[in-house]
């Protein structure tokens, strides 16, 4: 292997190590509860999907800084569960597969009112699958 190739390979290895180390660390805030510590959620929010309808107790009241588990089930096809700010930017999301309980834990660090939207295509009426003001973080 040529010296320049070896140097380039070292650069790629360094890139691999640095980017993976940073993104797996708690510098990405949700990695702390997704990967590194087992947290007990203060609340479990159940969401059910059927025939293009998202059924959940809305608005869900959540305290800023507490862990909440969202548990979503579908009785027909695959959907998505996504939480969005009022400016349409995404907070987090997961896929909702039928026949399984799909769970994700989150800790909100900002107060405010959030919308829930299906993030996976489920048929032509998918665009309308939005629950406005579904979550209120205090």
């Amino acid at each position, binding site marked *: 292997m040529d010296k320049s190739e070896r140097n380039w390979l070292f650069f790629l290895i360094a890139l691999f190590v640095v980017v*993976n180390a940073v993104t797996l660390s708690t510098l990405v805030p949700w990695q702390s509860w997704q990967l590194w510590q087992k947290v007990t959620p203060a609340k479990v929010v159940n969401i059910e999907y059927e025939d293009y309808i998202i059924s959940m107790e809305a608005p869900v009241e959540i305290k800023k800084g507490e862990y909440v588990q969202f548990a979503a089930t579908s009785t027909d096809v695959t959907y998505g569960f996504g939480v969005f700010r009022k400016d349409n930017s995404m907070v*987090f999301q997961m896929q909702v597969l039928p026949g399984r309980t799909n769970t994700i834990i989150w800790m909100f660090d900002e107060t405010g009112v959030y919308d829930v939207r299906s993030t996976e*295509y489920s048929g032509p009426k998918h665009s309308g699958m939005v629950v406005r003001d579904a979550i209120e973080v205090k």
Partner: protein
Amino acid sequence: MAKLGWIEKWTLRFTVVALLFMLLSGLEGMLMRSQQYDINSLHGMETLLNNIRPVGSDISTENLYYAMLTAHPIVGIYGFVYMAIFGAFYFLVPYLVKKPVKHPKLVVANFWLQIIGVMVCWAAGFFGLFNALYTLYWPLPVAFDRVPLIGSIAFMLGAAIIMVNILIFSYNIFKTVLSKDHDGSYTVGQFLRAAFGIPRLMKLFGKEDKGAVNLDYNGMPVFIVAVARGSIDTVINAVVLLAAGVLILVYGVFALLGHPLNPGAVDALLYKNLYWWGLDMVADGNVLIYTAGVWYLLVPLLTGRKLFGANVVKTVIMVDLLVSMGVWSHHLLGDTSQPMWMRLFSGQLITWGEIFTMGLTLFATLMTIWKARPVKMSPPLQFTLGSMFGFVMGAMAGILQANVGLNVVLHNTQWVIGLHAHALLLTGVGTMLFSVIYTLVPMLTHLEFKFKKLVDWHFWLWMIGSVGMAMAMGMAGSKGMLRRTLYTGGEFTPYTLAAIIFGSILSIGFIIFVVNLVSTLGLKNVFSLVIPEKWQKSTEKV
């Protein structure tokens, strides 16, 4: 124009049809973008076209949008990319191994079957309103209250034709390389060992593969090894998608006969794993390795210098096969039902293997150009460099989203389809295919492109347009704009408008290219490519 040989003529035919599919796919992309900007923008056209649709005139804009979104990648990938690759490889492989195509009739069959397959899929969307998207997430394609039954059956038949056709193409390419008609014949075992890189692996452990006389990568053109290696992925891709298509087809036929089967009999997560394992092979085999193979071929040819670090390149081809087998979970990072260890290793860490294989590929080709200085910046070299830029851009975006942390906010957004997929397919693969066309047309026809200025215009408009469009979509994605979602409330319009503007620039670049190509070949010659030879002879007699 020089009198074309049989295979040269077919190569140009594949190219012409590939460009027509590119035009259709691009038009669909622009139409969908205009609907994203203003959902009512196509109402007039929709009303007009609904008159020729057998499913009735009461069709929602959403129905039409998602049907178009389903057809768009099929036309773009299996129409444009595959047709162009079929044409190029049917010329280049026999040329490099110095053997004729083993089964010429299969070349003709490939040409027509691909057109038929793609058009059946397209018609399943256009007329049958099939809308389950290319992802075909179980059980959506068999949820016949959401997806039209006839459209679903038609789409699966079209997809099956395409997949069988890809298997026929791979068979013909393998048979050509393995043909014993001329010198340098290989057995199937020897060839597969070379494609899997066994001789090189043995060499690493200080052993010699005695059965691989003149068959180690040292003896075989790197391009051929890349084609063989990429074809393994392509074959796996075709087999898995064919199996999924047959499964959906069976459900469709039973539903048609009034005996619907239970969709719950198939586990959605297991299906998704198997489907993505096969589907992602198209990215590794076709997009990455075929492209790398073309760079390995073109760069030494264009610079007049031997490929830099050829031994490393050969090892890279081998390693990438192992990588490609294990990366599919990056499509399931949003599935919390998928075990975390699979998401972490397959979805993130193994996927990072591609940064090594593609990184070393780019380094080898760029160093070849650097060491060959001064080089003449010919159109093919210009486009080859452009395609490398596209790959760097698309790969960096891809590697960021293939991450268990960052995917939480990037999954299923416009980032994925814009900055990753469109950058790879348009700026990467599209630009690479243009470099092939700019190389092959003078080679086949002995004609230089007529308007040199237009080549520059094509290059810069294509690059600015494709990069700008991908950036606009990527920025929208980073702000939360979803892919596979038609926004009806005017959300994200500034980004969509930017994507429309850059998409228009890209389209102008493409039209300039077509004008230059047709002017170079001559309109009469272009028509002679698409008119059957029998008709041409009868016309000549008259």
